[in-house]
């Protein structure tokens, strides 16, 4: 007789900060609970801070006409990120640009080389903004590359104003959640100036467990904010509760100190063990 388990394990990455947004580096397993499809889960199979992790990093670069005013600033920041991001040889790194009806790989695995910089500096802003199509494609690529213990991260440079995609916003979010990618959305809008595009970027980042960072932070500011996040990053694993739904909403909440801010992706797609 063959027994097949239908209980699959969820591996959830989350970040812990205090009320002043400072990383909490010493979180304990009984400081939080996970709410998975409305069920409160306190029994975990494992819990540990992330001390080092391999990252599959993809930069999505909006070179549509609408970002024209800040395009050179965008290219400068991405170029400054290139050597930083490839200094750790354990990470995968790629850059994808999108505008009009097209997306193009600027570089993949060779982003530390001069050719990548030349390609980057040769692109110009033109055409409409296929943001959601680009996100779907990026997620598909990350799903194809998927490896255990490699964290997919998307650095999305855009004003968030999609104008031409075939895919809808919801389809893009679904694909991103299926890939497990964390989105850091680099927002071109003036800080404090509300825009529809900023709201789109914020939702994309929040739903994936990432966050928005202003382009004005520059390459160093962007890197240091992401580094700060990972100083307060934890991974918890638990048995996925049985429900009838394919998509599970998920959240992490404190068990004692309500000033703790615990940030994770908004959900995941459940699949039974093969």
């Amino acid at each position, binding site marked *: 007789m063959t027994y097949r388990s*239908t209980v699959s394990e969820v591996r959830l990455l989350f970040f812990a900060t205090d009320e002043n947004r400072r990383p909490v580096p010493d979180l304990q397993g009984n400081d939080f609970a996970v709410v998975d499809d409305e*069920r409160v889960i306190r029994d975990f199979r494992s819990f540990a801070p992330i001390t080092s992790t391999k990252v599959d990093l993809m930069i999505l670069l909006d070179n549509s006409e609408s970002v024209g005013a800040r395009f050179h600033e965008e290219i400068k920041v991405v170029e400054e990120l290139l050597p930083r991001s490839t200094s750790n040889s354990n990470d995968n790194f790629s850059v994808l640009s999108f505008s009009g009806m097209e997306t193009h790989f600027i570089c993949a695995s060779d982003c530390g080389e001069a050719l990548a910089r030349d390609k980057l500096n040769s692109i110009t802003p033109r055409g409409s903004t296929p943001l959601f199509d680009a996100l779907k494609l990026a997620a598909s690529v990350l799903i194809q590359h998927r490896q255990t213990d490699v964290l997919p991260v998307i650095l999305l440079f855009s004003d968030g104003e999609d104008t031409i995609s075939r895919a809808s916003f919801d389809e893009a979010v679904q694909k991103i959640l299926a890939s497990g990618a964390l989105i850091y959305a680099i927002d071109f809008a003036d800080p404090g100036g509300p825009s529809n595009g900023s709201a789109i970027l914020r939702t994309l980042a929040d739903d994936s467990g990432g966050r928005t960072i202003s382009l004005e932070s520059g390459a160093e500011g962007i890197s240091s904010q992401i580094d700060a996040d990972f100083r307060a990053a934890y991974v918890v694993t638990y048995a996925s509760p049985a429900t009838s739904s394919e998509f599970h909403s998920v959240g992490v*909440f404190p068990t004692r100190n309500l000033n703790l801010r615990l940030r994770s992706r908004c959900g995941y797609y459940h699949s039974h063990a093969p």
Partner: protein
Amino acid sequence: MKNLFLLSLSLIALPALVAGQGGIYEHGSVVRMHMGECTLAHHGFMTAFGNSATEVPQESCPEYTLVSEKVVFVLVGKSSNQLIPLAETIDFRLQKNELAVRVDDAKHETKFAIKEMMVRSEWDRIQRHMDEQMRASQDHGLAKSQD
């Protein structure tokens, strides 16, 4: 029959009521949470002071299922950021028609509206039934995929 049921529920909840008046806390565990409508907290005020054109705010409020030894409560927060710490065991007491939960290591309480109350044994029976249905549905799906 309904009156008998309500009487039974009141008798079961009586110790908690008495404990609440005397400041003694009961203990329970939150087993479910979701963001739902703030209906209980908002509608009462708006009905009393608003006019027919007044719109109810569309904010989401946390809704918790709190299981104690004899009674299960469904509680609704009054705002989106009114949270209960999800510790294994929390302290609470009934105060008039609200439920006060101790937070911040007992430094203060936060009050929740009671949306629903149910006898624990009835709630357990319903959960068992739902789990059985879920297992049957999963086994059926697994059998189909093997065909």
